[in-house]
């Protein structure tokens, strides 16, 4: 099921296999039947590593969700808690353990911390008097999870919030550790580039860890030539914009979690003959989305406007293929046809699914609301009237459109104007508080702290310079046959990806001035390779760059990097890693502070 991980430039299945092996080893440590009590957040990421069948093979008979109170009844020898190292979870575990009936059912208790064990949590368990009840306290180092053939994610939801709002660099430590694990499997990465404070911090930690582990160096020929570390706050603009690739839109509209999307069921009702389609399914349709699906791999990164053509072409090919059966005359021909049937049927159902999804999306993208929103976004990105109160935003507030949509737009205007005039900013804030409630004052404060929203202080707006130098806006974009990454936002080229592109050619020296305008330092480090491991590049062989987005990456940015990988004269192939796959909505949501008053 994970074969799609091995097709890319770098075989990421090695990483998955290493993670699976470690999991099996831990499970075997607890001999006998077992039940797993899950920190619910972990089930999604774990699904990318191991299916239930693997757990079952190792005598996992029951699974529960971690919740306060008593543990459910299960006739097993071992209870294993799979948890993140968080204090609030420790309190729940303690409650579970205390209410265990030790007399009636003596079960062995274990904890597996993901991704790392924590002294603080163990201390808390000790204070609660339950630490000694555990036979095994272990850690399962799951930092980077292979998500697709060229994509790794740490699935750490709050990484951006922690780093940039709360100044908690835990996730950066995990990142550095994850990169060390990666280097242990794929060789030392000789070159490290980076931009931003967090990037610098991660690189420093990596270099330090390398010194610490000196001597135990592996003798693996490096697979990656370059690592590029990018802070999300170097490019706050891109995630705010509405993604216009097929996959990006699916994520914007329905949200993709851990590789799955839930869709409204109506379009997917199986019309069977005779039933007349009376019973519409009520459960949302759950689909897995990754490159294992041939058609999806082909269309995911296209601009949505180019998807329709591909789908109809495919439809013709498939129906032609089915028509072939009439031409099959001899037994041999029929046999050959039948042997292709499973593949054809899979292709047909895949086509049906994506046609339905495309229809769903089209309903939305052709709506006036979508169009108006996009128009304003594009005005901001091209620098039109970014210094005044925007009447579209005002109207949206007045009509009480979803708050996150408003925040995305206001933040975007602020970023594109290098901060808003105090009067404009206060006006928006007041409108928001009056319309959506004063409790959002904290959310606004958070946005200001992360720089997404800010008053313009004296300094000149440098966004136009950045836009022009980096060619962030391309007038004549070709959505069908793109020649530039800007197709992913129908005109806007993601700044982050532009930086990656310019790094590969002609190098950052050419944009030194602009780099200085962006927050945080930019740097280059070299890691010494053991002699004999220097790669001898074949003529025309591409370089491999790992681009790590600290604080999240969008599907459109991934699409843009994939586009660069495929460019013939590009010379660089990209593997993408991130703390979390995000879109503007999920990103802003992670920065919100929810306050609810008790009822009077």
């Amino acid at each position, binding site marked *: 099921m994970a074969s799609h991980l091995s097709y890319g430039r770098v075989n990421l299945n090695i990483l998955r296999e290493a993670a699976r092996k470690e999991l099996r080893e831990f499970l075997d440590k607890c001999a006998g039947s077992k039940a797993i009590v899950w920190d619910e957040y972990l089930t999604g990421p774990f699904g990318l590593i191991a299916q239930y069948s693997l757990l079952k093979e190792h005598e996992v008979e029951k699974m529960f969700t971690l919740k306060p109170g008593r543990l459910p009844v299960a006739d097993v020898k071992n209870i294993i808690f799979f948890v993140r190292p968080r204090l609030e979870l420790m309190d729940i575990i303690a409650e579970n353990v205390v209410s265990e009936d030790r007399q009636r059912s003596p079960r062995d208790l274990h904890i597996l911390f993901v991704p790392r064990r924590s002294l603080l949590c163990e201390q808390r368990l000790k204070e609660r008097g339950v630490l000694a009840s555990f036979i095994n306290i272990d850690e399962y180092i799951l930092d980077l999870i292979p998500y697709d053939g060229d994509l790794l994610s740490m699935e750490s939801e709050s990484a951006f919030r922690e780093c940039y709002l709360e*100044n908690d660099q835990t996730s950066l430590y995990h990142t550095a550790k994850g990169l060390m694990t990666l280097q242990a499997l794929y060789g030392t990465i000789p070159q490290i580039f980076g931009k931003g404070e967090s990037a610098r911090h991660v690189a420093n930690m990596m270099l330090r860890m390398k*010194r610490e582990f*000196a*001597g135990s160096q592996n003798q693996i020929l490096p697979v990656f030539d370059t690592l590029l570390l990018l802070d999300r706050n170097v490019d706050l603009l891109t995630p705010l914009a509405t993604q216009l690739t097929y996959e990006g839109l699916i994520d914007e509209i329905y949200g993709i979690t851990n590789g799955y999307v839930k869709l409204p069921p109506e379009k997917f009702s199986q019309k069977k003959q005779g039933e007349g389609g009376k019973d519409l399914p009520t459960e949302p349709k759950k689909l897995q989305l990754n490159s294992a699906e041939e058609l999806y791999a082909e269309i995911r990164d296209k601009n949505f406007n180019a998807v329709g053509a591909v789908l109809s072409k495919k439809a013709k090919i498939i129906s032609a293929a089915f028509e072939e059966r009439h031409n099959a005359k001899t037994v041999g021909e029929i046999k050959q046809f039948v042997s292709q049937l499973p593949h054809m049927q899979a292709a047909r159902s895949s086509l049906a699914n994506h046609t339905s999804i495309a229809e769903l999306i089209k309903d939305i993208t052709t709506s006036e609301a979508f169009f108006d929103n996009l128009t304003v976004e594009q005005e901001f990105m091209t620098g039109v009237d970014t210094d005044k109160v925007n009447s579209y935003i005002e109207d949206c507030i007045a009509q009480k459109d979803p708050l996150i949509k408003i925040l995305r737009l206001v933040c975007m205007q602020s970023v594109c104007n290098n901060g808003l005039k105090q009067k404009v900013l206060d006006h928006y804030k007041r*409108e928001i508080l*009056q*319309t*959506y*409630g004063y409790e959002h004052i904290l959310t606004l404060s958070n946005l200001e702290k992360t720089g997404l929203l800010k008053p313009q202080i004296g300094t000149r707006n440098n966004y136009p310079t950045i836009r022009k130098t980096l060619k962030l806006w391309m007038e004549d974009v070709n959505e069908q046959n793109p020649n530039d990454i800007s197709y992913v936002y129908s005109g806007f080229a993601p700044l982050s990806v532009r930086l990656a592109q310019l790094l590969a050619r002609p190098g950052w020296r050419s944009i030194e001035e602009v780099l200085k305008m962006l927050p945080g330092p930019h740097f280059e480090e070299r890691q010494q390779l053991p002699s004999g491991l220097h790669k001898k590049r074949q003529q025309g062989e591409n370089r491999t760059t790992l681009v790590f987005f600290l604080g999240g990456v969008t599907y459109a940015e991934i699409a843009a990097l994939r586009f660069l990988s495929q460019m013939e004269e590009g010379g660089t192939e990209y593997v993408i890693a991130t703390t979390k796959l995000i879109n503007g909505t999920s990103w802003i949501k992670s920065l919100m502070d929810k306050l609810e008053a008790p009822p009077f």
Partner: protein
Amino acid sequence: MAFVTANWNPLGEAFYRCHRKIELYVMGWNLKEGLKDCLIAAAPYGGPIALLKGHQKRSPTARPQLEIYSASGSLLASFLWKSGTVVALGWTVSDDLLCVQEDGSVLLYDLFGDFKRHFSMGNEVLQNHVIEAKVFHSPYGTGVAILTGAFRFTLATNIDDLKLRRLPEVPGLQGAPSCWAVLTQDRQTKVLLASGSDLYILDNTSCTAVTPPGIDPQVSSYIQMAISFSYKYLALFTDAGHVWMGTSNLKEKLSKVDTKVRTPPKQMVWCRRPKSQQPSVVVMWDRLLLVAGECNETIQYHLDDDSILIPELDGVRIINSTHHEMLQEVPGPCEEIFKIASMAPGALLLEAHKEYEKESQKADEYLREIKEQSLLGEAVRQCVEAAGFEHEPETQKTLLRAASFGKCFLSNFPPDLFVSMCRELRVLNAVRDYTVGIPLTHPQYKQMTVQVLIDRLVYRRLYPLAIEVCRYLKIPEYQGVSRVLKHWACNKVQQKEEPDDVIARAVNQKLGDAVGISYSEIAARAYECGRTELAIKLLEFEPRSGEQVPLLLKMKRSQLALSKAIESGDTDLVYTVVTYLKNEMNRGDFFMTLRNQPVALSLYRQFCKHQEQDTLKDLFNQDDDHQELGNFYVRASYREGKLEARLAALQSAVDEYNKAKNEFAAKATEEQMRLLRFQRRMQEEFDRPFMDYSLQETLHSLLMEGRIRPAEQLYKDFRIPDKRYWWLKISALAEKEDWEELEKFSRSKKSPIGYLPFVEICVKHHNKYEAKKYVSKVTPEQKVKAHLAVGDLEGAAEAAIERRSEGEISLVLSHCPPSADRSLVDRLTRARTTASKK
């Protein structure tokens, strides 16, 4: 060369079952009284020798002298024994000396006589005293077995993980057993003992009487027993002077030999080697050494002096006051090659090489002979292996040269065997050297592994040699050189006479950035020796900040620990130190410390946010962070159930925001308070919930319920922008479907939001009729949209064509259904063409 076989002695009639005695060293020590009256322990694998001189003299004035020598007799340590009466000495696997005292306490010394630690063998031993004790080695480590005055046994199988075991009683045992031994079988340690003619095996739970198979039934007493090095074989010496040899599980008899000596021997040990041709036992009396094997004949050596026997894996070492010798069965390959008139391939090759060096053509004849039988490979192998068994470098060289010569005539003989033998012999010859004094044989070396050999060199503080060996054998640095350097440094920090900074500098100079060096381990050692300052200096060199933290905390350098934890980037470690500091320091100091460490401070804030709200407030207070305090009170207000409490909290927030000069937030919060008060009034007045609605929602509800006056009041009080108020009002009216009021409102004054929203809101509530009323009022720019909204294609087309806007014409076209009027479509298309040309 001709004399290689000079020290060979045949055992039995056949010449090819030979034993040989090799001289290892002429002892460097000068023992005036010989080995007489000494308590002696010599460690296997060519280990050190400990002597306790005069231990039987029990006068307080004459204390015994403890001396430690290398196997070549050079003095390593010597001191007066001031502790209790020693019953037995023994060596641990890591070259530490164990001194078992009468009272059951065991003292541990290192190779250089420095006291390391002591432990007790338990109360029972203390009360009944130790009569005899034996130190033994098992797979678990070094063990001690004790026979007490109550004739009971107490065992500890691993002194590093001390678990005392008292073995069961032997029924009817009235006196001390005549002899006993410890053996390890089936992963269990047992004691075999003889009492008169009875033999017993004692294990953890039971005592079993046993009889060796094929033993002479008339035996009246066993007076000596020996267990082989591998615990597989057992030898018993009976009072009739017979030696019984068999397996230690007592299932098989190997042989029985009559020594014809009836006096009790001083010592009896096995003399075997792996893949031994035949088992043999060495029995020693005062002046006689006897080797007994399978046959009736024995080899006898005369002894000039008191000696001791040290059993080894592949032979027996014999030490007396002047000499150190090795007695062993002649190893197979040596026998093959050196046996007189041998025709073995190795022997022929050696001969061939000899002739070759003499430049004689006979060399070719010998070679041909070997090659004709295609045994050249075998010959080379024999020579290489034999070299490994030889002690004299000259002999080794001769054999290796012959092997090398033979190799020339072989095309694809794997070189590893030859190369590694050369290397290993070079190392072995180095450690066998008189000055080092570790007479290891090649099989012993293979058994103990090079890692252990390096350890042994390190224990002897032979650091330069250890490093040479590591480098020569190309051992990975972190297993080899680094490990040696670490040991060196750990030893160095104990040198009390040198000042801290000199030592720290010396250590760093030598170790530098050697890979895999753990400075924290060295520092921990320094701290153990009471040198805190040195420990801190050393920790500075530790590259792994994380490793420094626990020791720094232990040394109460908590501030330093905190900065190191932060340096490591491991936030969990930072939390750990912070929690530690919190418990150790008073609050003021704790806060001050955090203040200087922003990373720690923000982590602690996060912790407090979830765990200790009040501390969080104190933290903000200390930093005069009024903005955060304001946010804190806002957050707090939402936890209050009563309005008054909430308002109070919000008032505090306002105050803080004011102090923070955040005018906007202060005003907004004041507004919030005003709204809450207003909402309560409304709630009381109209008896329906209003609390915690946003201002917008409150207005909306009021408008929906037609309460215009309070709505207007809110609109004014909160200075709601006209635009938004109009939006609010029209959507409320449309939702109520109060079309009349809507129309009235539209005429009340000029709409600040234009009239398109009127059209749209009516359409949204499915009233196109009403919507159409407003189309005419819409500005020209929005006309097209308005017409489209009410579904008037014609109107939209007119408007679009009139405005000659290409975009708008296209928009209208895109709204034209396939059934649309052709002429309309044509008109639009034409207009678009004209517009685009413009």
